[in-house]
């Protein structure tokens, strides 16, 4: 019997990282009544602020990495997510790596060591006075890692109800104020990208609070699967 130890490159890495979940852990917890006034009700994450029910339980995501690709040479969009990608609160996104040597490498080599994703949404509610977004990540990666990061100068996710936009100007909203990062591996001559079957799952949460308590929205999930 041969003992074989496969470090890093082949060893699957399970990883879980959570950023800033104040209050409830999501899942649409029922409001608890205190006195005569209820917690915020009807709390959910939506892709617009219009109140259109078809936009509920959905959001958008925008890749903000300094990467390039053939169709969008001014920026990356490989990891963009549309609200139309969501079904029952989850968006399953497939990243085709069958030609990764030319596609992902062309996009990221020399440009960015990671894919960084901003999540854009709106907290639908009634009678809330404050808000809190949260983002967590779990991954199964044969190379590299996944993590959460924040805008410069920040160490927690946004407290804005409206997190529908991402901007880089002073004072601009940067989505939910926490970014999902998929960090490539590398070090033997170039970047190393995930393998077939690797996954990265981001879970987005939102809380709405008033003087009587906090209600959590049902989480939204964005799952990236790398397929050869």
């Amino acid at each position, binding site marked *: 019997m041969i003992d074989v130890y496969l470090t890093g490159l*082949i060893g699957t890495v399970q990883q879980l990282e959570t950023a800033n979940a104040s209050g409830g852990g999501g899942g649409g917890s029922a409001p608890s009544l205190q006195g005569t006034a209820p917690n915020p009700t009807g709390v959910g994450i939506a892709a617009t602020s219009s109140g259109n029910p078809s936009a509920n339980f959905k959001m958008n995501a925008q890749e903000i990495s300094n990467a390039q690709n053939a169709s969008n040479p001014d920026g990356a969009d490989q990891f963009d997510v549309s609200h139309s990608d969501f079904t029952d609160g989850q968006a399953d996104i497939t990243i085709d790596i069958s030609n990764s040597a030319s596609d992902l490498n062309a996009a990221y080599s020399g*440009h960015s060591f990671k894919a960084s994703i901003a999540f854009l949404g709106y907290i639908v509610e009634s009678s809330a006075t404050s808000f809190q977004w949260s983002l967590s990540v779990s991954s199964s990666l044969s190379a590299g890692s996944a993590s959460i990061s924040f805008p410069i100068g920040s160490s927690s996710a946004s407290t804005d109800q409206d997190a529908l936009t991402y901007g880089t100007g002073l004072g601009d909203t940067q989505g939910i104020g926490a970014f999902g990062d998929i960090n490539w591996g590398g070090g033997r001559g170039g970047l190393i990208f995930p393998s077939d079957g690797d996954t990265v799952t981001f879970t987005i949460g939102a809380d709405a609070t008033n003087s009587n308590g906090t209600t959590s929205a049902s989480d939204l999930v964005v799952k990236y699967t790398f397929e050869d």
Partner: protein
Amino acid sequence: MTRIEVSIPEGTQGDYTIAHHDTQTQERMWQQYLEMKSEPYDNHTVLIKDACPMPIMQDSQAEYMEHQWLWDNATGDVLIGGLGLGMVHQALIDNPNVTSVTVVELEQDVVDLVWDHCAKDDTFTLVVADFETWTPPAGSSFDTVWGDTKLWDNPLKDNEYQTMIINNYSQFTDNIGFWGSL
């Protein structure tokens, strides 16, 4: 923080170059490497292959961590696939459990750049051959085999490379490990 710093002069032989990078170096994606690895040190010696956009080895903290399997397992007669910067040599010399080290390196240019300047003692043997296909002499056995020859421009997938190395060396050892990406 841990690092094994090498002392190899700059130079070029064929497709390979030894260069000294600092925090201001822009070539070969060096800034990207430093950021990617959260590298805390300022000055590094790197080995460059022309065909690769990033150095193929550097005496960084990340490299030390990517060799963790070797630090944990090196014992007895050790076979190293890939000379690189010779970065692992001093650690193997300092390891009282290591009795001999055989280094297999395909590229004579790398040997010419590195071998005269890297740490070694009389227990070291250099074989200029392709580690991926080399057959050890009859009767050979190794207590530890370290596979670190898969570069960015190798068309094999990681698992394909590792399977190939395992198949090639399993009759000579029962302990094979591979360089690991952070």
